[in-house]
């Protein structure tokens, strides 16, 4: 690097280093410190003070650039929040679709910009509400969807051609059917698929590593379903983000910020390779790949993490796939504040926690943000908790002034140094996984799970020992705590879903339903694109459970090496 491209005058840096050393010895050293060991949540050592010397290797235009231009460290869009603030996308879903439909309308009325719909445990796993395994979980953790009729009810009266919808389908086995139902519902409403905008989660790591439940599809099959949905959307639903690589959930399971970014990028690279193998051009789908990250407790590390992720993605995509469209190089992401950082103790404290998390997300340049409800360590958010979270997001957006300039922490010696260090560590991990023959293999061997589990264990030990203070949990506790609010009760779901399923099974054309399932089975056998078939199949009102049963029959199930 020539002196002309260096961020700081090399002579000045030399002098700063000298002066800092003297300061450390004479001014700083004599004073008492709380500890000698300061580090980030992912164990990167933190110095007492950062100076230009810690960021002096940066080549500004190459390493940081300008917003809307590579390497996008300062932001993926030219105007960032000056043009349009981040989308407020509050997660919602519980009980039968009739109830969740009302919550969606409530949030939209109160100023949410888009829907962020989450599905209940049985739906996410491809089970009908009436399955014996599902009987105690229908309507829990999200909304229950069994057939296309439920999807029609869920979005009844909501202008899906005007707002964008995020479908938190998590696992590909859920996504392949639920997303198909969303599309089929639009077609029945006489909307063309290219009018629809939204995102679906559709991450195979969700199915095989993160949220393990009964009857997991083998990693390769789950990965195939994920790629089928991406391919389908690339061809038919160009404004849809067909995958949201869910680092958030990896993080909730226990991994570090470094692992979170390394695993999502590895996953995305694997999808790119597979879609190119299927004959798609990189620029036809890469601009629509999206990411989902956590905002955890370590404020500065989280901000640096988002910035590092943007630089890594830009460089990797460029090197490996040489796309022509610069949109293929932009790391766009949604953030949810860390649920795992919330406490069941003194739950109102979570309002403060989630607000800090949300601020880290927007100082890091997030495209959309969900702020957690204060009661999420105890139950599904009540209407009051959901509204408070929405208002926290709005306060951040309208009152704090964080939207006025782009990447306000860019150029902070500490943030730039941390961004560089995170980048280096993430790249090391990415290389390690590549040597294992990529992410699908690393999942099959149980390595990814083991890594997450080890990090989670270390985290818990740090909390247990008090080394990591958590207010209200291992310090500043309240004796004989009394819960200051009402908790959410899941409305009756199973009997409502059961009634609808029974009615549909009687009413539907049985032969047509049978043919629809056979078409899915033969699509599996011919290795065709399953979403092409399932979007049509769901119109025969086959249930989600019937579809996933067919897939499990064809692909078998897998026992993840968990313990």
């Amino acid at each position, binding site marked *: 690097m020539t002196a002309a491209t260096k961020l700081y005058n090399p002579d000045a840096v030399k002098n700063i280093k000298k002066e800092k050393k003297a300061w450390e010895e004479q001014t700083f050293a004599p004073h008492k410190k709380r500890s000698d060991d300061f580090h980030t949540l992912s164990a990167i050592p933190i110095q007492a003070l950062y100076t230009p010397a810690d960021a002096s290797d940066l080549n500004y235009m190459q390493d940081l650039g300008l917003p809307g231009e590579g390497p996008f460290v300062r932001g993926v869009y030219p105007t960032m929040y000056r043009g349009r603030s981040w989308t407020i996308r509050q997660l919602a879903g519980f009980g039968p679709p009739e109830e969740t439909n009302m919550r969606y309308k409530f949030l939209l009325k109160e100023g949410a910009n888009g829907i962020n719909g989450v599905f209940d*445990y*049985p739906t*996410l*796993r491809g*089970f009908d509400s009436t399955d*014996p*395994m*599902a*009987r*105690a*979980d229908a309507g*829990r*953790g999200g909304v229950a969807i069994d057939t296309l009729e439920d999807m029609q009810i869920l979005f009844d009266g909501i202008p899906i051609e005007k707002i964008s919808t995020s479908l938190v389908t998590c696992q590909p086995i859920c996504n392949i059917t639920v997303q198909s139902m969303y599309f089929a519902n639009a077609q029945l409403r006489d909307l063309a698929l290219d009018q629809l905008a939204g995102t679906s989660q559709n991450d195979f790591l969700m199915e095989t590593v993160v*949220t*393990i*439940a*009964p009857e997991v599809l083998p990693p390769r099959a789950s990965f195939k379903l994920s790629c089928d949905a991406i391919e389908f959307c690339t061809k038919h639903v160009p404004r849809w983000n067909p995958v949201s690589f869910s680092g958030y959930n990896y993080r*909730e*399971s*226990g991994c570090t910020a470094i692992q979170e970014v390394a695993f999502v990028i590895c996953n995305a690279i694997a999808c790119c390779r597979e879609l190119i193998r299927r004959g798609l051009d990189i620029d036809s789908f890469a601009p629509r790949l999206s990411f989902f990250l956590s905002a955890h407790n370590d404020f500065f590390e989280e901000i640096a993490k988002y910035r590092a992720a943007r630089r890594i993605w830009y460089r990797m995509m460029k090197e490996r796939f040489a796309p022509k469209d610069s949109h293929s190089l932009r790391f766009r992401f949604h953030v949810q504040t860390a649920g*795992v950082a919330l*406490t*069941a*103790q003194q739950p109102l404290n979570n309002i403060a926690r989630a607000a800090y998390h949300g601020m880290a997300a927007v100082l890091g340049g997030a495209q959309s943000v969900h702020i957690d409800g204060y009661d999420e*360590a*105890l*139950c*599904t958010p009540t209407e009051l908790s959901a509204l408070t979270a929405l208002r926290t997001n709005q306060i951040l957006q309208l009152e704090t002034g964080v939207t006025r300039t782009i990447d306000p922490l860019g150029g902070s010696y500490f943030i730039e140094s941390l961004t560089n260090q995170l980048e280096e560590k993430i790249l090391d991990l990415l290389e390690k996984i590549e040597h294992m023959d990529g992410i699908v293999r690393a999942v099959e061997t149980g390595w990814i799970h083991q890594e997450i*589990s080890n990090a*989670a*264990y270390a985290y*818990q*030990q740090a*909390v*247990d020992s008090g080394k990591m203070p*958590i207010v209200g*949990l*291992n310090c500043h506790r309240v004796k004989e705590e009394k*819960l200051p609010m009402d*908790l959410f009760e*899941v409305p009756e779901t199973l009997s409502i879903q059961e009634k609808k399923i029974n009615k549909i099974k009687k009413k539907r054309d049985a032969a047509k339903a049978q043919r629809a399932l056979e078409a899915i089975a033969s699509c599996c056998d011919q290795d065709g694109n399953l979403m092409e078939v399932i979007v049509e199949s769901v119109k025969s009102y086959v249930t989600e459970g019937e579809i996933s049963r067919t897939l499990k029959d064809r692909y078998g199930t897998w*026992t993840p090496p*968990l*313990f």
Partner: protein
Amino acid sequence: MKKSIRVLIARLGMDAHWRGSIMVARALRDAGMEVIYLGNQLPGEIVEAAIQEDVDVVGLSTLSGNHMILAPEVVKLLNAKGAKEKMVILGGSIPPDDIPKLKGAGIGEVFGPGTPFRNIIKYITKLAS
């Protein structure tokens, strides 16, 4: 040599969070107990495995909210199969109001979010020996 305490860990129903149950399983193993990790099951299968594996303790985990339905069923089935002596404990996100009801239904102890490993280990060691 003293026989080590045998613990079965299972996740109730369709709950999809493994973090809590795996962390506790690891902590109990590190504390010298023998741990059998069952994954997701319904009460019938959990009780069957508990009897077959001859465990001292059945540890249930759930964050989905299904605990009021499924956890008491495990106790009931154990009693019906003459395995009343096995201790049943529960971990996960359990609303405080549910805890007395669960204990009334025969759950030995409920460990909510943020419980230190040592509390669980201490409880099991004290009651199983």
